[in-house]
Every structure is written in C-alpha cells, then in structure tokens.
C-alpha cells in the first residue's frame, strides 16, 4: 500500500514544462465530468494559451470509461501528439491500470485516494498525487448526485493549484458558465475552492509542468465543427431539414435548430422561417431535402456512414434529376455497432461515387470549425449553382470535439447565388424551354420551380432517361447525350469549388504531404519534427472533389527525381489515394500512403514515424497502418 503523498525528490526532477503538455482525464460516462473537463480547457484558453480537447467516449449513456485529452501548446500544435500524457487525472477504477500506464515517465497521476492503491498499481517512474476526493464529497454533501457531480469540480480546483492556473479567472468562468442558473454558481465555486485548497495544503504546488498566461489566441474561438456546420446552414439560408438521429451528426441539427429558434423567427408574426422534421429514417431524411430542393428551398440533412448507405438510392436520383441539396456526413468508424463514437475518414469513396449507375458527387472537406461554417454556408450556393447534391465530409473528431479555430466571419455584401432558375418573366422571353438544354455549354441547364408560370416551364421530373425537353425516352442516343452533359457539368463544378491550400518553396522539397480534413491538425508539428531530421516538406490540403488542376500539378512536380508524395488519411484502404489515382490517372507508385485507422484522431508521432520508415525502406503500394 502506498500513502497519499509520494512525490519523491528524484521523480519530481521532471524537466520544467511550461504551456507544452498533455492532460488526460479518465472518467466514467454519465457522471457529469464533461462540463468540468470543458471548464478546465476553457480556463486554459482564457489564459491566452492555445488548447485543444479530444473527447474519447463510448457508445453508451452511463457507466463506461470515457477520456478527455487536453493538449496545451504555446507552439500551437493542436493536433494529437501521440505517446503518453504528462498528467493523468484518474477518476475511473475500471480503467485505472491503463490510465496509470499512459502516464509519461516523470509525469503525474492525480487519483482518488479514498481507497488506497494496490502495490501492483505502483510505477516507480511516475509521481502519484493522491487526493481523497470521494471522502471529501461524502463529508461535504448529503445528496448522492451532488457527491458525484462535485468530484469533477473538486479535481479541477486541485489542477488549478497544481498547474498554477489563474484561479480568479477560473471562478469568473464558473460565473459565465452558469449565467441564468445563478443558484449553481456558489456551490461550484465552493467545490473549486475545496480542491484548490486541498492541493495547496498537501502537494508542492505548482508541479514541474504548469501554465503561464500568454496572449496567443488572437481572434480564435474554441468550438466544435458541428456547431460550425449548423450555424453555417443558418447563414447559408437553409430553411428545410429532414433528419434522423445518428452519432456523431446529431448535434449538427440540434445546433441548427437552436440557432434558428434564436435567429429565424419572423419578427412580424412570431412564426418560424424554417421547418425541421425528425423523420422515420435516413431514407426519408434525404427525401425531404430533395423534395424541398426541387421546390426551390435550401434544404439539407446530416448523417454518418450508415445513414449515407441508406441515402445512396436517393443520392442517385438527386444526381440524375439534378436537384440541389446539401448532405453533411460526419464520418465515424465503420458499421452500425462497435465504434460509432470513434473518428475516421472512411466514407470518401462511398460518397464520391454514391449510388447506382454512373454517378459522381461533389464533396467538400473542411478541416476546422471555422471552415465548417464557411463550407456549410457556401455549399447551398454551390448546390444551387450546380443543381446537384453537395456532400460536406466532416468527421467525429472535427464535428464533436472543441477546436481552436478562426472566429466565424460573414461578409454582409455577399448575396446568395441561386443559380440558373427561370422566373415567370424570363420564361415569357424564352422561345423554347427545355429543362435539359445546355444553353451555356457548361453542362448546367436552366431549371424552373413548380408554380412559377401558368403555361411554360412545367415538366415531369423523373429518374429514368429523358430527352432535353424532359420527355420520357428510352433512346440510347438521348441517354448518352444526357450522361455526357452530366460529365461536362461535373468538370464545370471545379470552378465553383474551393482551391487546394498549397505550401511550397520555389525549390520543391523532397517530401510532399497531401492531406485533407482533420488529418491536417497534426501537420504543423509533423513538419517541424521532419525538419529537425533535416527533411523539408511541401504540403497540399485538398478541400474539394472534383479535384482542381493544381492537385495534379503538385503531385507531378513532387514525384520527380526521387521526391516522395505522401497521402495522409484516416482509413484502412487509402481511399483518397484511390480517388486521386482513379480520377487523375496518376501512377499509383507516385503516392505513398500514411494510414491511421484506429478510431482515434491521427497523431504527429504516427505521421513522422511512418514517413521516416517509408523513406528508410520504401514499400511501394503497401498500405502502412
């Protein structure tokens, strides 16, 4: 058995780490830890220090292990680093052994010492900070729920002392957080004080890892991507939503609904300028979006992989009938049960080629909550300009975790572009209207909305082959004519889509990293680590499919003379690489994969190790996992 105070001189000789470490909280889900952990991360933010937080949670409501990993980095390394954590707050007996093992050598374990640790749980190379949190709560509170809830607040108070956080600021944060629920402020501050004072009395504070106030946040905000998408849809003018709950996309709709409730009530009548309907399944969810898109409203739905599978038939219809709508796919790991609360980028091919027959869909790949906002708003323009579904490819990490991101911004002079829609007056001027006549030679035809004109512009919209006047036909020539026009339209789409983000010097670096979405988060750290090894890198971030010409050029230029292009993605089968190879006719040997698919956000450590291993012993065409 060990006692509560085990900081020995040799172990506390840990090198001093200021504003550059990882804290991992191990909790049981359903115990109210999320809001306390969130408060901790936000306090770091308010101290002006860059921070990111990953919630690693089970597909369960109560009783299973859950972790919250906070990265504090004044170097602005906001992706996951990989490896062990400098400080672990172990509040879950179920996962205690694993949590002890994840503490870095010389690091700290803050644990509930109300029950002593067995000797088998003692690692000599780490520091144990035992605090009898359960006993404190038992003494302080009579209500069982409070005894549970305040445990979380107490350890945050202790961390404030241990890490030398600004305690006044933390208390102010509590006041902000419970605005409107003032009754809760005093007990929460009291619990913070309990922890703070206990730590100051029993431990040597601060530890060798600690935080110091900085001014490194600038205009950035701490928010999740689903909030960005939901709010972007409000700004983009979405009015109709059909949806079906599925983790991790549910909060896209919940955020959209709550912002609409605030911002979309008609001031004159007090009525809603939106309609959201929770339907029976994902088939109906996309059906609603398609029906509304056909009728001229901006409409969307949000789902994840299994929902996309169900929507595939309708995606084919929308592609072929050329109906604008937006689909948000917050990707997660694999099929229906197993790891639905873990992240992946594994629906790339399923979405790019969604549906039966020859179909290609337009994809957007945001990498931050701020870009989620921009792309979400922009997607409604793109969908109407192109008259086709636009799929926003987010993922669980982006959608549900808080990220430090540029503040949301909107240009008031920017007007919605509804694309080629004919009004009654324009129809009067048109000599002959044909829904599928390619007047502008860009594959994008003029459409009409139901109810527009008494005599002109009506047509029977159908998922079978049609001629240029929307008339039923089974003639091969008409079918081919239409399919070729759709191909032309797909390439016209490139002009409407965001360009890739390229960073390169005049002299091309020997290593190029190609990535998209959340795989971009650890890139800055990976680049610096490769540079330390003497390896310069150029980078390209893909933002949209169909691919811009620059992507092909970049890959060509970086695969000459023994240079190497790595495609970094979070799936097993190198889906983005496959799409690049297939669409750009690139020699597969020009692209080397870096593939992370363990369900957790990709780390800089993994990227660097994989790149170095590939350089040391190239395994062309072998997928490295």
């Amino acid at each position, binding site marked *: 058995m060990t006692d509560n105070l085990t900081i020995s001189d040799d172990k506390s000789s840990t090198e001093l780490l200021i504003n550059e470490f990882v804290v991992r909280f191990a909790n049981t889900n359903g115990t109210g830890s999320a809001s306390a952990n969130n408060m901790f991360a936000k306090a770091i933010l308010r101290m002006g220090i860059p921070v990111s937080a990953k919630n690693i949670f089970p597909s369960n409501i109560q009783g299973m292990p859950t972790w919250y990993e906070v990265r504090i980095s004044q170097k602005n390394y906001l992706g996951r680093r990989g490896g062990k954590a400098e400080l672990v707050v172990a509040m879950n007996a179920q996962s205690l052994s694993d949590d002890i093992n994840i503490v870095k050598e010389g690091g700290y374990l803050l644990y509930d010492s109300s029950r002593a640790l067995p000797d088998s749980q003692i690692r000599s190379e780490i520091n144990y900070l035992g605090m009898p949190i359960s006993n404190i709560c038992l003494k302080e509170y009579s209500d069982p729920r409070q005894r549970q809830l305040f445990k979380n607040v107490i350890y945050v108070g202790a961390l404030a002392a241990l890490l030398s956080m600004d305690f006044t600021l933390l208390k102010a944060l509590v006041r902000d957080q419970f605005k409107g629920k003032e009754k809760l402020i005093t007990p929460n501050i009291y619990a913070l004080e309990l922890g703070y004072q206990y730590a100051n009395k029993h431990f040597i504070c601060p530890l060798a890892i600690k935080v110091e106030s900085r001014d490194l946040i600038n205009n950035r905000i701490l928010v999740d991507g689903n909030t960005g998408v939901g709010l972007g849809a409000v700004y983009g*003018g979405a009015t109709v939503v*059909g949806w079906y709950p599925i983790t991790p996309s549910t909060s896209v709709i919940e955020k959209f609904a709550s912002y609409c409730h605030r911002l979309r009530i008609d001031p004159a009548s007090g009525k809603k300028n939106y309609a959201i309907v929770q339907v029976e399944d994902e088939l*109906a969810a996309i059906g*609603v979006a398609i*029906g509304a898109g056909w009728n001229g409203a901006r409409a969307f739905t949000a789902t994840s992989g299994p929902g996309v599978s169900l929507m595939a038939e309708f995606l084919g219809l929308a592609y072929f009938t050329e109906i604008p709508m937006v689909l948000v796919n917050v990707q997660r790991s694999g099929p229906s049960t197993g790891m639905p609360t873990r992240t992946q980028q594994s629906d790339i091919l399923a979405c790019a080629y969604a549906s039966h027959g020859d179909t290609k869909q337009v994809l957007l790949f945001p990498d931050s909550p701020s870009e989620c906002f921009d792309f979400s708003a922009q997607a409604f323009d793109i969908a109407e300009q192109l008259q086709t579904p636009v799929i926003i490819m987010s993922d669980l990490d982006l959608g549900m975790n808080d990220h430090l991101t540029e503040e949301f911004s*909107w240009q008031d002079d920017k007007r919605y572009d509804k694309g080629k829609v004919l009004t009654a007056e324009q129809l009067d001027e048109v000599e002959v209207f044909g829904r599928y006549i390619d007047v502008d030679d860009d594959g994008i035809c003029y459409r009409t909305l139901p109810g527009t004109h008494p005599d002109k512009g009506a047509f029977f919209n159908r998922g079978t082959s049609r001629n240029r006047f929307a008339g039923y036909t089974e003639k091969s020539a008409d079918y081919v004519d239409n399919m070729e026009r759709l191909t032309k339209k797909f390439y016209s789409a490139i002009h409407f889509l965001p360009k890739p983000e390229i960073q390169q010097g005049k002299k091309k670096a020997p290593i190029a990293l190609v990535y998209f979405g959340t795989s971009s988060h650890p890139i800055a750290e990976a680049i610096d680590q490769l540079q330390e090894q003497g390896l310069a890198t150029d980078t390209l971030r893909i933002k949209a499919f169909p691919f811009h010409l620059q992507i092909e050029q970049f890959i060509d230029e970086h695969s000459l003379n023994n240079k190497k292009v790595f495609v970094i993605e979070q799936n097993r089968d190198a889906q983005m690489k496959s799409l690049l190879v297939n669409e750009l006719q690139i020699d597969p040997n020009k692209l080397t994969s870096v593939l992370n698919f363990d369900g957790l956000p990709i780390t800089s450590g993994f990227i660097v190790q994989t790149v170095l291993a590939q350089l040391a012993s190239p395994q062309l065409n072998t997928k490295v996992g």
Partner: protein
Amino acid sequence: MSFIKSTFRHPRLPVNDLGLTYRDYEGALSTLCAGCGHDSLTAAIIQACHELSIEPHKVAKMSGIGCSSKAPNYFLNKAHGFNSVHGRMPSVATGANLANQELLYLAMSGDGDSASIGFGQFAHVVRRQLNMVYMVANNGVYGLTKGQLAATADRGVKNKGGDVSLFNDIDLCVTALQLGASFVARSFSGDKKKLVPLIKAAISHKGFAFIDIISPCVTFNNHAGSTRSYDYVHDHITTGAVADFVPVKTEITSDIDSGECEDVCLHDGSIMRIQKLDENYASTNASQAIMDIERHKQDGKILTGLFYLEPTASDFHEINDTNDMPLNQLDQDALCPGSRVLTSINESFR
C-alpha cells in the same frame, strides 16, 4: 391503339371560372394498358380539378414508382411533377410541402409503393398530417413487373400465374384511420360519379386526405378468382353513406335529398353532403369506420365511401408554426442573421 394524342377540341367545350376547359387539365397520352383502371382515375382527377377551377400550374404532382406512379404524367400537363423513388414519395412530398405550402399536392401511389416498400413512409406522412391528397390506385398486383401479388391482395386469392396470397392483407384505409388521417375514403375507379366528389372534397380539405381507389389491372388481375377484378368489385361493392360535394359560393344543388342528410363544411367553405345508408355510419368516428370496414370484409363485401372526415384538422405547418410566406420565397434578409449577430455568437466561444 393510339400513340398520338388528338389536339382536336370541340369549339363549345364548357369553361370553368378560370376560362379553362377540361382539356387544359389533361396530360400526356397514357401508356397504360387499354382499359386500365388508372386511366379512369386520371380522368376523375382532371374532372375534379377542372370543376374546382384549380390553377393547373399551382399543383405539384407527386409519385413513387409503378404503373400508378406513371399516371401523374397523364393529367395536368401544366403542373410540375416528380416521379421519385419506389416507396419514397411521402418524404419527397413532405420536403416539397415544407418548402412551399401554397401549392396543391396531388400524390399518386400504388399498393406496392405504399403498402410494401413504402409502408413506413406512408405511415409517417399520415402522422405528420401533411396537407396533401394521397391517392392509392389499388389493384392488388404489381403491374409493371408483371403480376406479382401485392400486400393489399386478399389472403388466399390467386394471381394470374396461380400464386396464392399467403399472408394477411394490409388495408391502407385502416392504417390511415389508425394513424390519424383527417380525411379517409375508399372508392372505385369504375364509379366516377362517386369518385369525383371524393377527390374534390379531398382537395378542399386541409390536412392529410387519403383515398384508396380500387383500380383493376386489366392485364394481370382481372381474372375469375381475383377480388380486384371489375366483375368482382362491381358485385361486392357497398357503401355506408353516399357523399356529394358542393363547392364554395354555389347554390346547394345535390342529387342527395337534403331531408335525410348531414352537411359538413370543409376548410375552404365548400360542403360535403352525406347521406347515411348504414345506421351505424358516422363520418366523425374513426374507430367505428375501422369496425365497419372489418365487418364488411368478413361478410365478403368491399366497403367504400367517405370513412372519416375531421373538417377542422390542422396540418404540419400549423403544428410547426411555420411562417405563412412559403419558405422558398423568403429572401436573404429574412434568412441571414448578418455579421453583427455573428460577433456576439463568436463571443460565446471565447
């Protein structure tokens, strides 16, 4: 068989309040089989819309897949139509209606489309109380795939190929009544006189209006032994009440004698005049209607007519409290909160 539609018009065709003749309500030439019940049904829709002076372009024709779902192409050429996905018309109609509540949504579906692949979507669009007219052309077989039994086929009947319907049948009227449809009726495509008033009333009704129309398939389900053949339906049809439709602002003239009837005022001010033939009949009692349907079925009869009518029903938009201005007509100023609001939203994430 004709393959070109005649453009000949009688010079003195009657015109309606909009100055339109029934020909202004027609569609493309039908490609259904000669004698198909669905063609009588589309003729009834054309007559109903013409007589009600519906603006043709203010109608949205919705359908799924199947012979029934091809039918919207054969009426109201001036209206947009959406021939969607098998069994999924209800969700598309929902989205369309949410986007613009001012159009009249006339939906055509079939027994396969609504009672099998789309049974879930059918159930939920009823629950949603979408303001639409949902018509099922019910012939008990899959016509377009050549005669397989549908879920509405009576248990024990044989199709043309000799396959027996092994499982219990689904009565879509009973489903609609259970799930709260505010207008439920059954009719027969071979009896236009009774069908047209029901379609008119369904159009005038606000809320979800469902009409199950027995519409025989002359090619695959008109044989002896079928319970959806013209002969069988003629011989076994019965009704609990005769209903006639009296439009808004017209003098009440009806074939039904006013002495023994009940007048129900519909949402738009028109009147449904109902004459009881069965003493149990009550147009406001859904559970009674379900019992009546089941009782007649046990007696080997097909009960038709108006089963249920809730004239003051609400619809989705009323429940949702949607702005009266159709959502697809709101401009950016009404929809986009602007940059100033965004500044305060950003503050909540610091």
